[in-house]
């Protein structure tokens, strides 16, 4: 069975002398002193609080000293209560009082204490908290009769809370949101590009498969390359053979010379010409050289054998 732990309550006042005594993991609900914020009561012709929030900076424009402000608003009866506060100042005060950010439960404006301020209450040695014209304000002790100290025990706080930005001093939340959205959009675009690229790759692979089927290629490119190399080698050999044949068959031989034999085996073409004299040999070899045929001549008696490696 889990019991709901009561949060401690602390009135955050810049002039407070003592910090709250909290256990390490104890949560604390904070009530901000009016010294930590500006408040106005305004009547605005808008229906939603969201529409009011857009107007807040301009509503405080000429009032606030220079600084980095956050804003809040909520409806109270027919009017709106609007607040401006410096988060950095509140965070510094929390640090001063030794309250860790993780210990903060909820943060309320002192306006929440309106119902408990039938009489002014002392908040420090020089100031008191009181309700005037429905606004919770602070006043010097000399101006009011504040007999009692402000007691946070038993106070019931409203649901109107603000959310402190722990890193608001580094970059404001709207910028963070814009940058995050931009980065996420970019991530989405890049992700989409990756998907499209994968689709294109699948398309190319499919076309390749179709190609293999259409041309009845072997399963692997290595096999196909080997097959092609074989055919190219055959083509080269046959072309060279025909060129050599052509060279020999177009020889102008002396009257007595005859091609006696043509043998082609193991890529060697041997052509034997009979009745060859030294003069006719020179004529034959000269013609072959002019045709660019590389040969090895072998003369045996009057038979000249010319060997060509194909």
């Amino acid at each position, binding site marked *: 069975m889990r019991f709901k732990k009561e949060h401690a309550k602390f009135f955050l006042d810049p002039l407070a002398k003592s910090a709250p005594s909290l256990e390490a993991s104890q949560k604390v609900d904070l009530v901000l002193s009016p010294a930590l914020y500006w408040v106005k009561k305004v009547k605005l012709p808008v229906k939603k609080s969201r529409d009011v929030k857009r107007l807040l900076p301009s509503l405080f424009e000429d009032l606030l000293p220079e600084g980095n402000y956050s804003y809040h608003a909520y409806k109270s009866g027919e009017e709106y209560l609007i607040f401006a506060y410096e988060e950095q100042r509140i965070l510094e005060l929390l640090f001063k009082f030794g309250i860790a*950010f*993780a210990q*903060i*439960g*909820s*943060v309320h404006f002192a306006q929440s204490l309106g119902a408990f301020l039938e009489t002014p209450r002392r908040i420090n040695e020089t100031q008191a908290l009181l309700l005037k014209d429905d606004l919770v304000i602070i006043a010097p002790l000399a101006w009011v009769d504040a007999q009692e100290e402000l007691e946070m025990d038993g106070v019931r706080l409203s649901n109107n809370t603000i*959310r*402190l*930005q*722990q*890193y608001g001093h*580094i*970059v404001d*939340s709207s910028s*963070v949101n814009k*940058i*995050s959205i931009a*980065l*996420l959009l*970019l*991530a989405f675009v*890049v*992700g989409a*590009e*990756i998907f499209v*690229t*994968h689709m*294109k*790759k699948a398309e*190319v*692979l499919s*076309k*390749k498969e179709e*190609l*293999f089927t*259409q*041309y009845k*290629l072997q399963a692997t*490119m290595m096999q*196909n*390359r080997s*097959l*092609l190399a074989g*055919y*190219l080698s*055959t*083509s080269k050999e*046959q072309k060279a*053979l*025909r060129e050599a*044949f*052509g060279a020999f068959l177009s020889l102008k031989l002396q009257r007595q010379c*005859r*091609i*006696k*034999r*043509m*043998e*082609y*085996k193991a890529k060697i073409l041997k052509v034997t010409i009979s009745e060859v004299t030294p003069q006719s040999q020179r004529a034959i070899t000269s013609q072959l050289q002019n045709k660019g045929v590389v040969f090895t001549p072998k003369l045996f008696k009057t038979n000249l054998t010319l060997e060509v490696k194909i």
Partner: protein
Amino acid sequence: MNQINPLHIGAVLVVLLAFLFFKLSDAKSSLQEEKLLYQESKNLALQLSSLKEIYGQKEKTLLSVKRLLSQSSIKSSGVTMQQSKEGLILSAKSMNLTALNSLMGKLINGSYKIAALNIERVNESHASLKVEIKW
């Protein structure tokens, strides 16, 4: 109340983006590789197909040689044909030079894979022939 440091969120998003860009680069280079491989395959397929058409058609070669041998000028010269698994051998003990010229002319000008050849003059007007054609 505890919040994530927006710088951490930013760092995570930047790392995520960097990872995605890396994957994109990887995917693109893989696509480029496949495209090059496809082009190579296409070129190879075309080359292989045309060479197969010339040198790889057993039935076509056989039919063509039979047609050659059935020509009247060659038919009467006694050329015989022996067929085996690897190819065929044409041989004639003695054929006249005109028929030899005609036959050899067609064999040389055709796309036959001549593996071996032996032409030997028998006399002034005749020669013996043995041609091995492979497929």
